[in-house]
């Protein structure tokens, strides 16, 4: 195996069945470092994929490698992997600090190392004041943060995070997203699932769309969107004379549909060939001396892709 392939998380034709119930089927993925989001409705296989790559589940078929390590080799795997699961449960009777330091001791660290790393992780998720309080007395947001601390405390290079923003208040969400970006810039893998699509859009380098156990699409969201030929790309143009522009662009082959915005200060163009359209737009603007305020892709985001490929808006759970 090459060094290049060792830096990826690879699923090779992986299937998982729970008895006769399908978890995921024939998944073929190669995930690069950076932030990758798993998106899909409930039961689509997001958690199953996460559990498979961390060895909590065994594949019925296929092969998985996390940076070259098999998930059934915990001694090597969990030196580089941290997993924040969706389970809001903890061992009984422990404080936040005891929870982290106890499991760091199971990692094989010395007492001093375990205590140092536990405190550092607690500080990173800003739980210093509650470190020595019982987890049972934590709020939902605090429990979510201590789980996150448990996942990052041993400084893993692969972080798997199942709905990591659940239960966090807006301030904590923003801080956590910053933390994710910071970790991603360090060259780590961050695999996360979220049902809040605008957040996925904000933080992800790439997405994996799942539906009913199958990978529906994967890659950089713009790349995924551009490959959807059945759904022309929608571009919103805010300008002074939308009628003039509409008449000019509609005559072109690349344009499928043009609609004037309700406030009559912009138009929505649907095109199957965005590159040609942008070129054409430049020519029209120069020729007609039009003033353009801004040009934005209107459906080049996870939510739109989700809607087109899976249906629904993805926000409900």
């Amino acid at each position, binding site marked *: 195996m090459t060094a290049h392939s060792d830096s990826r998380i690879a699923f090779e034709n992986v299937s998982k069945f*729970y008895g006769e119930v399908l978890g995921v089927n024939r998944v073929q993925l190669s995930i690069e470092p950076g932030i990758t989001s798993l998106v899909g409705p409930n039961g689509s296989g997001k958690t199953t994929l996460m*559990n498979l790559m*961390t*060895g*909590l*589940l*065994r594949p019925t078929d296929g092969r998985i490698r996390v940076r070259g390590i098999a998930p059934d080799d*915990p*001694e*090597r*795997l*969990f*030196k580089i*992997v*941290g*997993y924040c*699961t969706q*389970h809001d*449960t*903890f*061992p*009984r*009777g*422990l404080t936040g600090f005891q929870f982290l330091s*106890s*499991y*760091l*001791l*199971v*990692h*094989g*660290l*010395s*007492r*001093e*190392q375990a205590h140092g790393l536990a405190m550092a992780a607690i500080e990173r998720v800003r739980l210093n004041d509650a470190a020595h309080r019982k987890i049972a007395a934590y709020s939902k947001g605090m429990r979510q943060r201590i789980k996150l601390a*448990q996942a990052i405390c041993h400084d893993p290079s692969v972080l798997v995070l199942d709905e990591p923003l659940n239960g966090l208040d807006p301030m904590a969400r923003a801080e956590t997203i910053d933390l994710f970006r910071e970790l991603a810039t360090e060259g780590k893998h961050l695999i996360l699932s979220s049902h809040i699509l605008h957040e996925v859009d904000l933080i992800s380098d790439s997405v994996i769309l799942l539906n009913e156990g199958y990978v529906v699409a994967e890659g950089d969201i713009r790349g995924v969107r551009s490959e959807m030929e059945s759904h022309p790309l929608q571009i919103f143009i805010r300008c002074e004379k939308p009628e003039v522009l509409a008449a000019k662009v509609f005559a072109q082959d690349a344009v499928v549909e043009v609609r004037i915005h309700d406030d009559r200060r912009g138009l929505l163009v649907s095109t199957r060939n965005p590159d040609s359209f942008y070129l054409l737009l430049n020519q029209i603007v120069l020729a007609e001396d039009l003033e353009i305020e801004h040009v934005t892709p209107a459906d080049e985001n996870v939510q739109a892709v989700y809607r087109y490929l899976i249906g629904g808006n993805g926000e409900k759970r």
Partner: protein
Amino acid sequence: MSGDVMVPAGTLVGWPLWRRQLAGVLRLELRKTLLSSRSLMLYALAAMPVLLGGMHLLATPFMPEGMASNLGRHARIFTGMYSTFILRFVIFLTCLWMFMNLFRGELIDRSLHYYLLTPIRRWLLVTGKFLAAWVSASVMLSSSTVLALLLMVLPAGPRELADFFINGPGVGQVVAYVVTTVLACLGYGALFLAIGLLTKNPIIPGVIIWGWESINYFLPATLKKISVIHYLQALAPMPPQDGPFVILVEPVSPWIAVPGLLIVTAALLVLATWRAQRLEIVYGTD
């Protein structure tokens, strides 16, 4: 700071790493076993023999003339109590509760995955959990047994007691009870650990095993051998059972009983490890 402390875990491999990980599991499990709300049931069970011993002591003023100072009689009463109550009820139920919950309890609490997300091999996790529970159960139940024995023989008076422990069989009996208790925790512990991993509802097999162990006296010689109690009886200073339906067999020699129990324990631990190796975290169906 010692040299050992300065070695980062990432550089450790093999036994040095496993030793540290085992110590980590032991520390966490001892805390869970002895300090959690679940341990209240264990303390209550372990306190029962002491409570009975205390009641026996309190009854001393009401005993007929000569009975209170008869240490041999008190020791025989304790022997019966150990055989029928401590071994068959207290030790059995304590081990059932403690060892079955090692994995099953954490599956019910949905907290087992935290262990499985550390770089520990599963056989080491099984070993660590088993050792922690075995040490806890042995210390708890041996202390309870010895304390109950002392309370039972206390009415005999200081001279009789000194004679029993210095010149008589007192110390030997205490050692025999402790060894039997520790081995009982080992045998029953391994059995219930394996059942806790193999079955989704361990209560039913637990009740069946309890019934099987209870009717051991009435079983034919061949079937007697398929039980833990049969081997333990060879170790403790217990009276031979008699009665209309009891089937008497030659007691097993301690030289067979002890290695036999150890071999069965090892086999059960191998089975438990095999199951733990294949364990998946699907809390929804557990």
